[in-house]
């Protein structure tokens, strides 16, 4: 069977500029992630299994390629690192045993440290509210996290029905569950 022209043409994307490759970045991410993504052989098992790949700009195997090559800008600014929830469906399927969510964690952290524009600001805003809640109470207070998140987005009405249903079913506590020694957390959250 003859293959069609389209099947043999690689997808169009920006050309890779060799001058943009940053081996230092590659080493840094490897150190932070504690996993060797150079072992990736592009089998795409990760991307085939990922439940959220439909919503990612680069597939997980694509991100492995970006960090192998040291394409820093592409790796730090893609939405894949924010959509990944760390469910580890990919790592369980990876024949090279790469901790792919570990690479995503490292990239997210670098992106924030380098003030790269975050393409999914709402997801970041949510993570920040969760950490604020833990810093305040030692535990997560879901109602307050949701209210602060919604205020930040100036959108109090989406999900109002969900919130009310949860309140009616006593699923959202009005007051936080908190630890006694919150001062011990200052050591954790001190900048």
């Amino acid at each position: 069977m003859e293959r069609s022209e389209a099947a043999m043409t690689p997808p169009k994307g920006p050309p890779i500029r060799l001058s943009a490759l940053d081996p230092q970045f590659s080493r840094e991410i490897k150190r932070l992630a504690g996993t060797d993504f150079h072992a990736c052989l592009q089998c795409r098992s990760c991307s085939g299994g990922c439940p959220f790949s439909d919503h990612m700009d680069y597939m997980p195997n694509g991100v492995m390629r970006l960090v192998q090559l040291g394409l820093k800008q592409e790796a730090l600014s893609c939405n894949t690192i924010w959509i990944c929830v760390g469910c580890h469906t990919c790592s369980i399927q990876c024949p090279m045993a790469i901790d792919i969510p570990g690479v995503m964690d490292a990239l997210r952290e670098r992106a924030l440290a380098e003030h790269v524009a975050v393409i999914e600001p709402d997801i970041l805003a949510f993570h920040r509210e969760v950490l604020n809640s833990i810093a305040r109470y030692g535990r997560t207070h879901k109602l307050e996290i949701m209210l602060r998140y919604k205020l930040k987005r100036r959108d109090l009405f989406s999900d109002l029905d969900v919130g009310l249903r949860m309140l009616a079913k006593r699923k959202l506590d009005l007051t936080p569950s908190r630890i006694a020694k919150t001062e011990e957390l200052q050591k954790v959250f001190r900048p």
Partner: protein
Amino acid sequence: MTAADRAAPIEVSYFPGCSLATTAKENNQSLIESCARLGIRLVEIPDWNCCGSSSAHSIDHRIAFDLACRNLALAPAGRPLVTACPSCTLRLKHAQHLLRHDAGARGRYETLWGRPYDPDLHVRHFFGLMVEIDWRSRIGNGDVVPLDLTFAPYYGCMLNRPAALRPSTDHHGVMERVLGDLGMRSVLWASSTQCCGTFLTVARPDIVTPKVNAILQNAADSGAECVVTACAMCHMNLEVRCTLKAPIPIFHFSELIALAFGSARRDWFSRHLIDPRPLLSRKGLAA
């Protein structure tokens, strides 16, 4: 005298985690009740804090490590630390992995929490305990109400781990085995280990809703009368984000064990967003 009294009582440390302490109190209470019937005392570790959840490791690995470590430091020596939430379990085990292999991590632990880390602390999910203790010998046949229910076992991402944390106990099949012994029938279905979407439920419900609907539709199409979850977060996502007209109810694993042991409470089931009480009364299982 019940079988639980005859068997040697077990006392273990217990880390409930934020979800079980708040949104999923019914998960917590049913777990404590079920364990009590088996002669297992869950002793909450004093002043435990959030494990860091998905958000800490997503944006700051050091905060994630420290939060998990404070809990490890609070756990008394000489007894296992039992967890109920798959996500908390992974966070605590990941911190232990770093402590085992990284002297710098051990140094930080000692500086922050003022004690050396305990290499013998066994962090284990409740499922592991359930398999190991031979629970059938701890409860009499007369004490079990058989549950005439067909269920879809939903593990979510619980069975997935990064390679560094493998091999460790694989909990695959625990729900089928334990609930099977309690009279329930499991279905084989495609979404058993499909991720629920976790925190994307807040910022990207547009992604999570179709996922959740597909999971619940798939369970119903497979002939299940209910879904049983291993994780309180999955339970919440399935209930909150489902937009199907008549979804099948979703139980926490522990609720059904308590129900079979005759110690379920009505107010657990009234907290569900998808009301399971009509199904239970149809089956003569009203708590």
